[in-house]
């Protein structure tokens, strides 16, 4: 009980907003949880939000937590599973121990191995009391949905789930947080939020040959299914060192900081589903932690990615001629910009005064050294809904109802936009756009797996991994001493 109350007080700001409705729903719908558990259930709900479970475990227009979302990975699509407490199709039959094992070790109740699209390497750090709260929340408060899981079908050899045993041996940490969420110091809470719950590094840290996070380049930026999760270390020019803690908190809450950055793709989802639901205090702890992450500098970054360019007027000299509709001319980057972007972003890239249409200069997507996010934004648009406020930019990809641009057109357009509003012509080719459209460049392991297999690569992998493991241990000791 005592613990419950302290948890309650810790979550008060959050609870004040949501208790009424959430409790009404959870208690009215299914068997009322014992009173003592209510606060724990609330805590679990908050932690589930912080861990952003819903993002992956809900299909588009699907029921919350019922799974069915296809997550693109370099190995193929991994389909998320039903984690509602339905005992047939969900996790209703999981004991707390089963639940813990899945979260922390990536092993299902039936013994099958999960793929690390489920960030169990991050959740391995979860405190056992926090897992208890999460378990109570899922079992008592989430609505059971009867929905069968769709099978995940990866290509050989990745379809052999048991392979993950070896991988886990190498890359799965064992050090869970000893203190529960409510009793962590500010710094520890920030770290716990970043590394365990929000699992920032899952996207923002680059991966090694075996597709495990490179600890040495922690939060140093990584390609991600066509997108690029940028460097968010404290480097002024390469990371977010020029951001204040308040800037970061504003970004977490709203997905945008005018004149700096706006969340798109996976980050937009993380803000909508998770970060914007955290308390101010937690966001400050998180921001403060992120701000002290050691800088990873890239010499080619001469200034912060949100500090490129300024509004530039140009005179729109025109031919005064109209072209027959069945004989369109090939447009250059400037014309593509004028006819696809300028209606909203302005001839000069200013955007709107209220910045509901953002400026294209002082824009981290366009000032970035990687043009991935610019290309992905053009391809998929932007859709972000936070507190009922929606930000939307239409897609110019192959399903667009507004305009479908070819790879070549997108390359020209992106080159023009980076040239005019960013750090210079990105020199993209149509083939680069094609690669990004198809989910980005494939990692080494995927590109060469067939060869590796032929070479009896799995054996080699094992040897390599042993060496790696020794090296890692030594490295760690070295770092600690």
């Amino acid at each position, binding site marked *: 009980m005592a613990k419950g109350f302290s948890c309650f007080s810790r979550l008060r700001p959050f609870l004040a907003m949501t208790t009424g409705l959430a409790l009404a729903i959870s208690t009215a719908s299914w068997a009322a949880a014992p009173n003592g558990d209510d606060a724990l259930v609330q805590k679990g709900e908050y932690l589930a939000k912080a861990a952003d479970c819903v993002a992956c475990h809900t299909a588009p227009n699907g029921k919350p937590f019922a799974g069915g979302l296809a997550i693109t990975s370099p190995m193929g699509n991994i389909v998320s599973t039903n984690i509602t407490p339905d005992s047939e199709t969900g996790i209703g039959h999981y004991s707390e121990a089963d639940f813990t094992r899945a979260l922390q070790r990536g092993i299902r109740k039936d013994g099958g191995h999960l793929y690390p699209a489920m960030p169990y390497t991050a959740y391995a750090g979860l405190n056992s009391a926090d897992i208890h709260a999460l378990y109570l929340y899922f079992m008592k408060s989430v609505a059971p949905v009867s929905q069968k899981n769709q099978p995940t079908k990866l290509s050989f050899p990745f379809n052999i789930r048991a392979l993950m045993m070896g991988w886990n041996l190498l890359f799965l940490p064992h050090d869970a947080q000893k203190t529960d969420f409510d009793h962590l110091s500010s710094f520890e809470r920030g770290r716990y939020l970043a590394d365990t719950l929000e699992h920032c590094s899952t996207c923002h840290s680059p991966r090694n040959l075996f597709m495990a996070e490179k600890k040495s380049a922690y939060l140093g930026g990584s390609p991600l299914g066509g997108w690029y999760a940028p460097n968010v270390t404290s480097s002024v020019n390469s990371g977010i060192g020029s951001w204040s803690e308040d800037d970061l908190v504003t970004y977490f809450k709203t997905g945008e900081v005018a004149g700096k950055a706006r969340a798109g793709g996976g980050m937009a989802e993380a803000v909508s589903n998770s970060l914007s639901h955290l308390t101010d205090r937690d966001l400050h702890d998180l921001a403060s932690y992120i701000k002290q992450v050691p800088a990873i500098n890239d010499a080619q970054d001469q200034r912060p990615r949100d500090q490129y360019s300024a509004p530039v007027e140009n005179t*729109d000299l*025109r*031919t*005064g*001629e*109209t*072209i*027959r*509709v*069945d004989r*369109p*001319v090939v*447009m250059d980057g400037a*014309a*593509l910009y*004028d*006819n*696809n972007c300028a*209606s*909203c972003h302005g001839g000069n890239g200013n955007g709107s005064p209220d910045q509901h*249409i953002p400026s294209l200069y002082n824009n981290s997507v366009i000032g970035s050294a990687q043009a991935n996010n610019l290309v992905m934004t053009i391809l998929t*648009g932007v*859709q972000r809904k936070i507190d009922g406020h*929606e930000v*939307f*930019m*239409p*897609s110019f990809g192959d*399903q*667009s*109802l*507004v*305009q479908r641009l070819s790879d070549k057109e997108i390359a020209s357009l992106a080159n023009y936009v980076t040239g005019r509003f960013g750090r210079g012509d990105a020199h993209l080719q149509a083939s680069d756009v094609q690669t990004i459209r198809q989910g980005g460049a494939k990692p080494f392991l995927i590109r060469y797996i067939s060869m590796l297999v032929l070479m009896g690569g799995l054996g080699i992998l094992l040897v390599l991994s042993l060496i790696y493991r020794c090296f890692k241990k030594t490295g760690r000791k070295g770092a600690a001493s």
Partner: protein
Amino acid sequence: MASSNDLSADIVIVGSGVAGSSIAKELASTGASVIVLEAGPRVDRQHILDNCRNTVNKNKYDEPYPPSPWSMHPPDQSTPNAYLHTTGPDAQAYQQSYLRILGGTTWHWSACAWRYLPSDFELQSRYGVGRDWALKYDDLEPFYYQAESMMGVCGPDPKIEDLGSPRRQPYPMDALPLSYASEQFKKLIDTHTPYRVVHEPQARNTRRYDNRPTCEGNNNCMPLCPIGAMYNGIHTVMHAEAAGARFIDNAVVYKIETDASNKKVSAVHYYDPDKNSHRVTGRIFVIAAHCIESAKLLLLSADDKNPAGVANSSDQVGRNMMDHTGVQVTFMSGLDSLWCGRGPLETNVIDNFRDGSWRNERGAYLVHMVDDNQIDLATALAIDKGYVGKDLEDEIRYGASHLVRLFSHNEGMPDPNNRLTLSKTHKDVLGIPHPEVYYKLPEYTVRSCDNSRQLFKEIMGLMKGSDPRWTPGYFPQDHPAGSTIMGHDPKDSVVDGHNRTHDHENLFIASSGVFASMGTGNITLTVAALALRVADTLKKEIYHG
């Protein structure tokens, strides 16, 4: 002139505009095979936008769409008789503008999405004039809503502003906020006259809808919404393609072929741009081309079995050509600055003249204060009035903030003498005759126009208006209808209440050609609703028929 005979589908549709594409989408979604034949090419928004910015007069909204030779459409309103030839005392009032490209004429439209009033379907029974439709408002109501959902229509809360057409559901989107100018106009009319200004229902996004953005107020609905916030038929084409319908562009249908019994259509024939002929067979055929083109095709298909043209035993194909006729004045308001032209083009409407007992003798109409950007007109006027330098700039700002344009759509009336025929003198590059229309304005419409002129004078007085510039004569509103008129009696109508031709059981017409009265407000929503109702009929036909 080679002929290929490998094209066949359950449903064969001629025309890819709102009507054709929505039937295609509905039927393809059920798994039926669908082929849509479009005379014109597939076009890209970005190229049209570029054309648009290269045209001098942004209000000549056909100019950014220079036609392909095999799918000619009227080039623009100031180049009459280049494709559509009009004759008769009011020839100029029937120089319609339309497009023959994939997606159809809603590439450029104002997106006003009015439902007709129940009385519009019963003009003869209620007022003793004109004709009744072979269906009633209630028959169409569910399809109106389906059309509104498909297109994404915003409109006022019926509890606050009842627009006279009963609704079972609210509009899919909240009404578009009025511009400052429209708001002032509304206050003036609501306060100082017995009339009212309402929010116009529009197929325009007031929030993200169908993965298209919210309106940004580009004030360019015609000739083209640059950002896709306004509904265009091409959106439904894309959805239909995703559902499995096959659209063949540059396919100019020139003949409808009937079987030996003449009870059924067996195929349609089209030319590609090189004049190779192709034959397309199917179970059910829908002519969903523009009102003028649909009638043209039926007439063009005349043969021994159908000497006056297909579906024309009544001799009504091509007759009863109607439109909304326009009255328009531009003047300088003497009130505080309005700055018309901020936001979309048409948002406010005086709707008091859509219906009334007077409809036994004069047509209904609706009035817009057009929210059209007047800066270019203001500039041209100020320069030509003789201002220079600083005074010129002051004059431009004053004009841009005070010029006001009023216009009305006035109701037409079916008259069999207003008739579309095939030109004997003009043919296109494929050898297909151009359409020709004889037009004399019905007195019913003329009296309606006179009435709206009086109203405009009254409004100008209220607005302390000066320097009025009336558009001379009468001009078309590009809402042609009536060419394949609907009715119960096969002797005096072309289609029945389900848009099925009286003559051929598997031939349907989905276009404004079937309208039996003009009503008020733009015709597109009614065209879409009728098409969706046809789709409903076809589903029953192919799965249970």
